[in-house]
């Protein structure tokens, strides 16, 4: 990406961080890549975690293919203070690597995932969760890498409920028209003692499936990984491919993407509002929010030709041009519906009482778990990749980041409403810059053979969506890593539910997080 504001690593803190980390630092635009030997991984992680504004955005592994070693462990850090990303690469030989979650708890879910997919596990030897594979998944089960050597029951955390509590099973087939997900609600009969999730029911092996695809083919699956986050995830993926191929999308295409992204944010927040009303039994409020939602979806259809904005993002730009006339004609009315519903809701005490002090997350917890998006912002954590890691057109149209302090459901709701208003403003301004379709023309192959790796990001309606790809010489994907925001925020859901809540709060909390299972079990 060529949109480098000067001065990444200009900050004093960062430069000595890098010198501390060691020799070979590669830089690609705003992304720094550091080679860290496995032996040095633990101190390096401590050093980075201590750095101001550093946030463990993702952890993933890849192997050279055909289950060969060494497996390469990559940690992606968002240096939100320094407007950049930092990737550490460590080759892991053997079965064990230094336990990351001891230092950065946010890494835990990925440690579990990496164990399932590549058979290597943290040295701490603490029990791991089952993430993507069903209980009966044997070594023959398809994986990104080698199957674990140890039998899973030696490694996975057993679920025993002891004493004066029992497990209330909920799912995977839950209410009507919601995704399949299993909750184990451990309850003492009144209050909620503990909660754990099984999401493997929906694991479709998308990353496994993307290997060997061309980026264009892959994009089709990426959009359908999380339908309610199609634009955000597709943008992140496309950006990663563009970084790998050194493509530069034309500005009007980026503007079109941005409009699609903000439209996606709008309808998601409307949908979340409707879900909140449903979970609090406010039927008419739900109807009002759903009217807004339906009208916003029709705006999408009118502007980009698809209710969920599939097919807008293309590798190297945008495949659809927004119908600006339709946008200016329909959006104000549709957003007006949402605004009216929201104003009415914010004056309904019976509604607000259910939201206040429900599902509280502290800023400390949000930081510890490296949460993103409205969930993090509702705890007072002002992180937003549109502002922290701007790509065009956000460079010249910076959003102002909505932040609340309370960290409860109400705070999340307020954040969403503020963001919705902000999105409408951005759409208006970006709409003036003449957005349109257009794909970057690849540089001539002789000069730059297709291949290499790249990191891409976008602020989806649920928060930072990350993608990382490695392309081989033929321009086919050897490893693609998708990290939608849902992956991060579901683990915050556990904590929020445990904080002094009763059964009936859980639907409310789930609605306020407005996550998808599809996003996390991809």
């Amino acid at each position, binding site marked *: 990406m060529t949109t480098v504001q000067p001065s990444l690593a200009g900050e004093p803190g960062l430069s000595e961080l890098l010198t501390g980390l060691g020799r070979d630092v590669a830089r690609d635009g705003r992304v720094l890549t550091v080679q860290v030997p496995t032996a040095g991984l633990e101190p390096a992680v401590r050093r980075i975690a201590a750095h101001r504004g550093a946030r463990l955005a993702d952890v993933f592994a890849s192997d050279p293919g055909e289950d060969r070693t060494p497996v390469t462990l990559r940690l992606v850090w968002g240096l939100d203070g320094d407007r950049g990303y930092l990737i550490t690469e460590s080759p892991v030989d053997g079965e064990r690597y230094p336990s990351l979650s001891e230092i950065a708890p946010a890494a835990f879910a990925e440690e579990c995932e990496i164990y399932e997919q590549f058979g290597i596990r943290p040295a701490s030897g603490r029990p791991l969760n089952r993430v993507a594979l069903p209980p009966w998944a044997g070594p023959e089960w398809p994986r990104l890498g080698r199957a674990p050597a140890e039998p899973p029951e030696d490694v996975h955390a057993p679920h025993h409920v002891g004493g004066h509590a029992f497990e209330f099973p909920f799912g995977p087939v839950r209410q009507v028209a919601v995704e399949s997900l299993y909750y184990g609600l451990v309850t003492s009969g009144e209050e909620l003692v503990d909660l754990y999730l099984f999401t493997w029911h929906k694991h479709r092996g998308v990353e496994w499936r993307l290997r060997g695809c061309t980026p264009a083919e892959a994009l089709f699956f990426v959009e359908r990984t999380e339908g309610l986050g199609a634009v955000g995830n597709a943008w992140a993926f496309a950006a990663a491919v563009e970084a790998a191929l050194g493509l530069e999308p034309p500005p009007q295409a980026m503007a079109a993407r941005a409009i699609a992204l903000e439209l996606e944010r709008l309808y998601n927040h409307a949908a979340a509002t409707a879900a909140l009303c449903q979970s609090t039994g*406010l039927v008419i409020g739900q*109807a009002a929010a759903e*009217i807004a939602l339906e009208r916003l979806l*029709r705006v999408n259809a009118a502007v980009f030709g698809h209710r969920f904005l*599939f097919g807008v993002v293309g590798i190297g730009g945008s495949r659809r041009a927004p119908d600006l006339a339709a946008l200016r004609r329909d959006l104000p009315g549709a957003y007006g519906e949402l605004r009216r519903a929201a104003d009415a809701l914010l004056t309904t005490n019976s509604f607000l009482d259910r939201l206040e002090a429900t599902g509280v997350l502290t800023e400390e917890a949000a930081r510890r778990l490296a949460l993103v998006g409205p969930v993090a912002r509702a705890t007072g954590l002002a992180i937003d990749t549109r502002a922290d890691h701007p790509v065009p057109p956000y460079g010249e149209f910076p959003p102002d980041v909505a932040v609340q302090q309370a960290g409860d459901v109400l705070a999340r709701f307020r954040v969403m409403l503020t963001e919705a208003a902000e999105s409408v403003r951005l759409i208006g301004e970006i709409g003036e810059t003449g957005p349109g379709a257009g794909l970057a023309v690849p540089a001539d192959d002789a000069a730059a053979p297709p291949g290499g790796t790249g990191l891409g990001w976008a602020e989806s309606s649920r928060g930072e969506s990350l993608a990382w790809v490695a392309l081989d010489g033929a321009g086919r994907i050897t490893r693609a890593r998708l990290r939608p925001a849902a992956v991060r925020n579901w683990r915050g859901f556990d904590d929020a539910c445990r904080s002094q809540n009763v059964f009936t709060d859980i639907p409310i909390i789930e609605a306020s997080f407005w996550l998808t299972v599809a996003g996390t079990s991809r």
Partner: protein
Amino acid sequence: MPLWTLRGLRRGVVTTRYPARPEPSARLLPTPPAFQPDVLTRDLADRLVAVCPSDALARDGDALVFDVGACTACGRCQAEAPEAAASSGEFELAATARAHLIKRIPLGGRPA
């Protein structure tokens, strides 16, 4: 709550009259393509088959086999050959047998 009832009443009726009357918003929906047999040649058909990401298209001899069920109306084929494919505008696609969704479009085009 009575206040909300009032709000609801004030909002008025938005419900569609479908199926009794046609629904205007239907024209906004993405719909599967319909093909122009006259311009479809074998290699054009093969190009279309190649761009289709959901394997909805296949060529069987001198016919383009179109699986409406598999089509996601992504519009790639229309982008590839606007002269040969255009939105059908059909959204009422429910079928009582999978076979009803498999269409054979004869390739009537003369190779250029």
